[in-house]
Structures are given as C-alpha cells and as structure tokens.
C-alpha cells in the first residue's frame, strides 16, 4: 500500500530538469491546467520583470542592452523561478502556483532558494576538499582546486547568470550530472564527487596509485574516473577471492574468471554482481545509504563493460593488474663528465675543418669520452646523415637507447616547436633505427623503456 501515489495531471518525467519553467508551462498548457490567457499574462509579467532587471543591470545609465545580455538575464529569471517551482511537492501544485501567484513573487522565492543552494554547495565543496583522494591525476586535482570549481563561488552571479556554471570542470564522474544547470549542477556534481571520494577512501592511496599505474603509466594526465576503476577492481578481487582492500589481481586470476563467469547467463551474472556489491559494502563497512545507492546506480555501466569484455576476451582491460612503479626493472645510464669548454671549442673547429668523413669519425672516437659530449657534437658539428649513421654504427644498444630516450621521435606537428638541429638529430636517428634488423630494434626499445639517464 505504501507504493500508492496520487494521480497527477502532469507527468513529472516529461519535465526538463534544466529548463524546468518552460517545460512546466508547456505541459500545464497541454493538460489544460493553464489557459492561453494565463500563458500570455505570465509572459508579459516575465517581460516586465526582465525590463526592471535590465534597468538595474544598466544601473539606470542606459536604456538599451544587447539582446544576448537580455536573453541571459531572462534565462536567469526563468531558472530561479523554475528552481522554486521544482521545490514544490508536485508539478500540479507548481502549475496552480503559477496561475495564482505573481511572477516577481515567485522570482524572489526562487532567488532566495538559489542563494540557499549556493551556501549548501559551498559547504559540500569544503567537505569534498577535506575527503579528497591523494592522487597525481591532474584533472581530478585541478577540478577540485581554487582554479577549478573554486572559480564558481567567486564568479557565480545570482541576479543575472543564475543558470550559468562559471567553473572549470574537467574531471568526469562515474555518474555524470545531466539535465541540470547553474548552482543545482554544481551541488549535484559535488555531492556525487563526495560519495566517490568516500568510497575510494576505504582503500590505501598507494593501492589506488598502483592500480591506476597498471591502467596506464601516464594516468596522471588522463581524463579517467578513479572511483569507477577502484570499484571495478574491488569487484574483480571479490570475484577472484582476493583481498578487496588490496585491489590486486593477477593474470592467473583473470584467466580463472573467464572460466567462472562465462558459465552464467546474463540474469544470473547480474545477480552475482549485485550480491558481490552487497558483500563488498559489508566488508568495507559502508553503511551510508546515499553512497550505497550511488554505487548501485554505477553498476549497470560496469556490468555491461564486464559482459562485453567476456565476449571479446579482453577481461584484462576491465580488471586491471596493478603495477608498482618502484618494482619495475630500471637501467641507470650515466652520461659522464663533459670535457673542458676550451677543448670542446677546438674540437668543433677542427671537425668543421675536416674534409673527409672518416677523419671526422676518427677524431670523435679519439677525443669524445662521454655521452654528454657526443650529444653536443651531434648538434654542433654539422654532420651529414651518412656520417650520423656511421657514428651510430660505432655505438652499442644502450647508447642508442639513451639517444632515443633523450631525443624521442616527434610527429611533424610536435616537431614544429623544435630547433632545426634537434629536428635533424631526431629524424636521422629515426631513419637509422628503421633500417636496423627487427630484433635489434626491439631490444633497443626495451632497454629505452627501463632506462633512466642521470
């Protein structure tokens, strides 16, 4: 009996969250709750409210304003009224209020509500800053900083731009906020982010770091959602009977999961995932009901990803194997001590005087004793491409790998910003590598991957 709802003339599902006022007028008119003359009177009242707001906007100094400005003020007015009408128990009541109350009154109520919401959003912003995850992800940190969402609280204009979102928000939520604008959008975004943070805080920052590093080494620069990766990993750990808090899964586990999960039909699979989430929440001791429902609403996305991965045999792209960057093999390359400046200048002068390539090579072999000097010579000695190739022929794999590391091949667009000499070195190096046998190329690239130059 508890599920019985009062019948409404206006279906609240057909109303837009972002343009609530306009959609309410449309629906109320279609249902016969508002007549044509009601609409006309509402329109005229809105326009006269716009006229007085515009006058205040111009501080009485100008009688006209740009159409775009007027439209923005009008949107702000309609947004504020819409916010108040949305706060009423149901759309029918909102339509009745529109019929009886004066537009300026509704606007004032709406504006007060916008202000309250702004204060609430500010509070949540501080809460989110406090439960922030410790991560190097740039989009996450910059969105939460004073130059991200922080801008909103400085530039939000309640009077003339209540519908605007003057903030720089790059971080993608697992459940994106759609169909909202202005302060409502920010409030919802921050609420969702707070819940995501709260969930992630159940895990050690280091485990999350290793997980995301396993996802992509350059995850700091990626636009990824951290919560989604963590939740998926926790699910993976649960299904593979691993410790959830570790967020760690192995290749063997993933192979085992194929066998385990492919047995189930879609319905059973979903049931298993939902059961898994329940157990995970219990294990992590999460009792917050909003967080529980947020996680529930994130599941369809994750479930469909796992289902697709099972079909395409790409489960290892969904359940990430964490990587600890500190445990990766490393080769340290010391570039040696540079020669004296005077001596170097003499060498360059001599090289430029040399007529034969063979003499140049001999000279370099004889005088150059460190990698740093060799690099300088490549830039300064104006060598031809054949001379480069013969010089590289005298080098070992590690030296060439170090060269690649220092002068990676750039695309034509990236190369535009480089100095001419640098461009030449890079393209000669690329051509040289390309003509090497395949297995040697592979070996060199493998070395380059683990190489650090000190």
């Amino acid at each position, binding site marked *: 009996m508890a599920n019985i709802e009062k019948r409404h003339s206006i279906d609240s599902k057909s109303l837009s969250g972002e343009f609530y006022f306009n959609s309410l007028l449309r629906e109320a008119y279609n249902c016969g709750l508002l007549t044509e003359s009601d609409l006309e009177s509402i329109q005229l009242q809105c*326009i006269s409210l716009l006229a007085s707001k515009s006058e205040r906007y111009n501080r009485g100094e100008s009688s006209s304003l740009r159409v*775009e400005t007027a439209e923005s003020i*009008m949107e702000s007015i309609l947004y504020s009224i819409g916010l108040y009408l949305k706060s009423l128990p149901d759309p029918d009541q909102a339509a009745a209020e529109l019929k009886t109350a004066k537009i300026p009154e509704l606007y004032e109520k709406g504006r007060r509500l916008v202000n309250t919401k702004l204060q609430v959003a500010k509070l949540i912003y501080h809460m989110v800053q406090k439960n922030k995850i410790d991560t190097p992800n740039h989009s996450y940190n910059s969105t939460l900083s004073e130059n991200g969402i922080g801008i909103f609280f400085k530039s939000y204009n309640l009077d003339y731009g209540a519908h605007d979102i003057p903030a720089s928000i790059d971080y993608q939520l697992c459940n994106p906020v759609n169909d909202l604008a202005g302060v409502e959008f920010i409030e919802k975004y921050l609420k969702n982010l707070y819940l995501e943070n709260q969930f992630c805080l159940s895990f050690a920052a280091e485990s999350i770091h290793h997980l995301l590093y396993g996802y992509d080494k350059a995850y700091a620069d990626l636009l990824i959602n951290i919560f989604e990766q963590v939740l998926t990993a926790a699910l993976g750990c649960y299904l593979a009977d691993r410790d959830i808090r570790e967020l760690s899964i192995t290749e063997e586990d993933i192979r085992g999961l194929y066998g385990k999960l492919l047995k189930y039909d879609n319905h059973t699979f979903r049931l298993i995932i939902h059961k898994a989430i329940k157990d995970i929440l219990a294990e992590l001791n999460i009792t917050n009901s909003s967080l529980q429902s947020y996680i529930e609403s994130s599941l369809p996305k994750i479930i469909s990803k796992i289902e697709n991965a099972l079909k395409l045999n790409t489960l290892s792209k969904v359940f990430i194997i964490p990587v600890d960057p500190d445990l990766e093999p490393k080769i340290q390359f010391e570039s040696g001590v540079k020669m004296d400046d005077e001596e170097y200048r003499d060498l360059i002068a001599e090289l430029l005087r040399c007529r034969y390539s063979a003499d140049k090579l001999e000279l370099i072999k004889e005088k150059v004793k460190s990698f740093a000097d060799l690099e300088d010579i490549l830039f300064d000695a104006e060598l031809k491409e054949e001379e480069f190739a013969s010089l590289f022929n005298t080098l070992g794999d590690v030296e060439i790998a170090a060269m690649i590391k220092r002068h990676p091949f750039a695309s034509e667009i990236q190369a535009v910003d480089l100095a001419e000499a640098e461009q030449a070195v890079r393209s000669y190096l690329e051509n040289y590598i390309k003509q090497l046998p395949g297995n040697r190329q592979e070996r060199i690239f493998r070395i380059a991957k683990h190489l650090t130059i000190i």
Partner: protein
Amino acid sequence: MSFDIMNKYPSLIQKQAVAEIVKCNDFTGRFGLTLSYEDAVELVEKRALALKRYGRIEFGGGVIEKLIREFYDSPYISKHNYVETLNELIEIFYFYKNDTLDLISDEELIKFMKDSFNGRCQGSLELLAGRELEKMARNLRYGYAPDYADNEADKEWEAENEDG
C-alpha cells in the same frame, strides 16, 4: 511556449514613444523645428530597426526624446534637415552603444555627440560618426578617457579653441 523577447516588443511602448516625441514640439517650436505625427512614427520605426540591426533591445522609450532635447538648439539644425538628422543620430547612437561595449552611459554618449557635432564636426554627421565617435570608442576600448587625444594635431586644435 517561447520567450522570444525581440518579438514581444509591446506596441503600447511604441505609441507612448510617438506621443512623447510629438510633445517635444512644445519647446522645439520656438526654433522653427516641428515634427508631424508621421515624422514621429518614422523615428520610432527607425529606432526599432536600428535596435534590431545592432542586436539590442530597449524596454522604455526616451532615447529619441533625449536626442531632441540635446540637439534642438544646435546651430547646424534647421527645419530643412531636422527629421533627416534625427534619423541619422538614432542610427549612430545605437551603433556606438555597441562599439563602446556599453562602457558609456546614454547621457554621456549623447552629450559627447552633441559637443562634437556642434564643435569639431561643424554639423557634419559623417565626421561625427566616422571620426570623432570612432576615436572616442577606440579610446574607451583601450581604457582611456573618451576625449583622450593621442596626436599633436588634436592637442593643437584643442589649444586653439581654448585660446579663442
């Protein structure tokens, strides 16, 4: 239901504006300047067109009346060019409201137009629109005072006038 505010321009305001303009004849009459009802309608229509062309919207009336009040005693306006000049002034006014990025108030802009029209431009609307107001708009956009003079000729002209 749409809120196309451009098309909701109430005709009542237009009627009111026409009446206000005709009423100006009371004080312009002694200079031999009068506007017929048709002239007033033409001016109001001109304003509506100018607003539309320059993408602006005006709720009250008043600008035409303000222009009349400032310009009616100009030595360069007679009954032969009165309506024509007002038409041009309306067009120039709205163009420069946009071009000055709304940095100047209506009153200041009209005052500047009048001073330039009666002063340096000596009654030439072309010089007013193409030289004086353009310079003023540039000054405002670059953050200078409206009458900031950046070349020697301007300064000399000003010095001469002060002496005279």
